[in-house]
């Protein structure tokens, strides 16, 4: 009997040790960008460490420049080893075969927190394969940033509301002060977003809801003609060579009257010169003949590569769900840069937009963002963001098409037809892989 008791005692101790060590052995690692707001990274790293301690999981976080996220993810999937969770800023639809289906946590989050912003769902769900290849927890609005003094003098105290206002007012300001409008037409991120916004608002788009290429339309041609006219009459040629930082720099230097950007340029200015920052106002997406749409600036999208398994996978999913549940902190510490995909997770948001907790003057500067979910769309709008849409984005086909017309090298009809042809090729490639709908499918 004694022997039996001793044996059971030893086994129970060993069992406890094994279970204990197994819980402590679980480790997850995250790869994400060095956030535009440094204080966000400080908060996030501390939060991740605390979460790890509370859940008996080792957590490490690596931050890299956002341009390295896709190439690192590609390398890690190819190697079959790497970070547990990778946060990318644009839809990773082309990685779908190497990623876990995250339907369970997407559904769990929706069940717990309610409706999801459409811009987020379209950046993480692929209908043609019925797969939730990602979990988008946040997005960044892309409103218009305008110089209040200049636009007031031009007769638009609340800034431009429509594309006609932008042309008329922007031209008047440029002629009187030499300060141009700043819509990029270069192969870089902000130009790709801004040019798409105009095309959507004029009624054009790259694809329809069924993922058929429909770029070559009268509406797209009208938008391209408009953008070329805007460039010729209210902008300088510098926009053909802009980088993603150029419009921020120009706004901070007071050398543009209007740009399309996240709050990043404004927040930078706020830290340098409060009076100049007070002179910056925000507008929602400009209205065109077919509506008012702007792409979200970026998205915060978590993916878990397929090489992650077992306890590590379970811990990663738990981390993501808990992070969502703490989204008030995320939005706050990002200085209202990250907006929640699940709006109910940040009940304070409307109050913060009415009275910016980070000291804007006037305090309600961001109030226009209350309507953001009415006009903020995603890259594949009105369809989903599929791998073909991502490749079109990567190749900068849209800003190059616009720039060709603005430079006077091609007429709008030919430029749009040429871009349409290349986009059809890309869609066919991905459709053949079964990752894009439409066509004969």
């Amino acid at each position, binding site marked *: 009997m004694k022997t039996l008791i001793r044996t059971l005692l030893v086994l129970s101790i060993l069992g406890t040790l094994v279970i204990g060590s197994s819980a402590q052995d679980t480790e997850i690692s995250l790869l994400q960008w060095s956030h535009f707001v440094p204080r966000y990274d400080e908060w996030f790293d501390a939060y991740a460490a605390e979460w790890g301690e509370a859940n008996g999981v080792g957590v490490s976080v690596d931050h890299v420049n956002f341009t390295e996220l896709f190439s690192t993810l590609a390398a890690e999937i190819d190697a079959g080893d790497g970070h547990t969770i990778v946060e990318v800023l644009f839809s990773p639809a*082309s990685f779908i075969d190497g990623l876990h289906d995250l339907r369970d946590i997407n559904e769990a989050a929706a069940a717990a927190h309610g409706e999801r912003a459409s811009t987020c769902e379209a950046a993480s769900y692929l209908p043609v394969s019925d797969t939730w290849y990602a979990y988008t927890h946040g997005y960044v609005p892309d409103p218009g940033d305008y110089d209040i003094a200049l636009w007031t003098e031009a007769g638009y105290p609340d800034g431009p509301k429509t594309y006609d206002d932008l042309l008329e007012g922007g031209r008047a300001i440029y002629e009187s002060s030499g300060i141009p409008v700043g819509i990029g037409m270069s192969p870089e991120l902000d130009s790709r977003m801004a040019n798409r916004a105009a095309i959507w608002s004029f009624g054009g788009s790259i694809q329809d809801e069924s993922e058929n290429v429909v770029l070559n339309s009268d509406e797209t041609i009208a938008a391209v003609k408009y953008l070329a006219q805007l460039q010729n009459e209210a902008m300088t040629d510098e926009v053909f060579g802009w980088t993603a930082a150029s419009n921020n720099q120009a706004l901070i230097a007071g050398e543009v009257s209007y740009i399309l950007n996240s709050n990043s340029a404004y927040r930078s200015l706020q830290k340098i010169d409060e009076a100049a920052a007070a002179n910056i106002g925000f507008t929602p997406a400009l209205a065109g003949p077919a509506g008012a749409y702007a792409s979200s600036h970026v998205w915060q999208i978590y993916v878990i590569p397929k090489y992650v398994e077992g306890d590590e996978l379970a811990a990663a999913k738990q981390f993501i769900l808990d992070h969502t549940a703490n989204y008030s902190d995320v939005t706050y510490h990002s200085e209202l840069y990250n907006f929640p995909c699940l709006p109910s997770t940040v009940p304070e948001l409307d109050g913060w937009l009415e009275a910016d907790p980070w000291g804007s003057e006037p305090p309600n500067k961001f109030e226009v963002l209350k309507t953001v979910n009415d006009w903020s769309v995603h890259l594949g709008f009105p369809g989903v963001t599929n791998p073909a849409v991502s490749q079109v984005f990567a190749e900068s086909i849209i800003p190059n098409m616009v720039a060709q017309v603005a*430079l006077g090298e091609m007429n709008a009809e030919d430029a749009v037809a040429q871009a349409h042809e290349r986009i059809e090729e890309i869609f066919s490639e991905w459709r053949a892989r079964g990752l894009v709908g439409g066509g004969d499918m």
Partner: protein
Amino acid sequence: MGPLRLGNFPLDNRRLIGALFLTPALLYIVLLVGFPFALSIAFGFSDVTVGNTDLSFVGFRNFLAVWENDIFRQVFETTIRFTLISQVFILIFANILAVIFTQEFTGKWFARFIFILPWATPVSLAMIGWLWMLDTKYSPIDYLLLQMGLLGRGGLLSDNRNLYWLAAPDLAQISVIFVQVWRMTPLATVILMAGLSSIPTDILDQAEVDGSRFMRTLLQIKLPLILPIMVIALLFSMITMFGDMTVVYVLTRGGPVDYTRVLGLYSFQVGIEGGNLAQGAAISLFAFPLLLAMAIFMLRTASRAEVR
């Protein structure tokens, strides 16, 4: 006392020592050049994406699709044009500088040190420096031109305050070629300097005794003698430039429109950023037959020149 007898020392074996010396270089080539190259061929003939690296064979489908792509054809033409134009300038400048740096003058070592910096500086850092120099709005070059009255209202070069180095199609192309020449010239110069230093002094003494002046010695003796080395310098420079994407990735990302988009950059944009790894690989492989033919031709030329 009989002859000293040495035991069998393994390193006396010429075959063994040869193999030992070659092994690191071979390993380097196989692991860091051969394997990625074989992988890119496999990718080019398959249907891989960034998310799915299963190699399912699709024949020449990717290559045909790439060739039918108008953007690719323009990119290919741009790459060849940039490479050829750059090489002309690199060759001219490298020859001039190699001759200067093989002469004796005060401060030669410092001048050489300064001159090698463009090659020794990490390319990405150097390009960020050039990005600032050529900034569309805050370029110090534009500032100097403005101060000299060449820019601005009534300026000789432009009425604008900026030339838009990286935004105007012609200037953007000139800028990229200029920066490539700036970056590659030191390497070519160093190679040519080695060639000039290796010319036997008795030949040069003989020429001097025969009354040959500087230009005649240079054109009829030195340059023909270093021709094989010049061809090698050119080959290094061409291959490096043909495959480079860093310069345009940092400076222009291929813009304005597609004016400065080169093969390396387009391959990266399609393959990694766009996720279509198979087509990205196919795009990069298009350079291979051309570079191979060029290398064979140039090495043969060098070999013939050496024999003569």
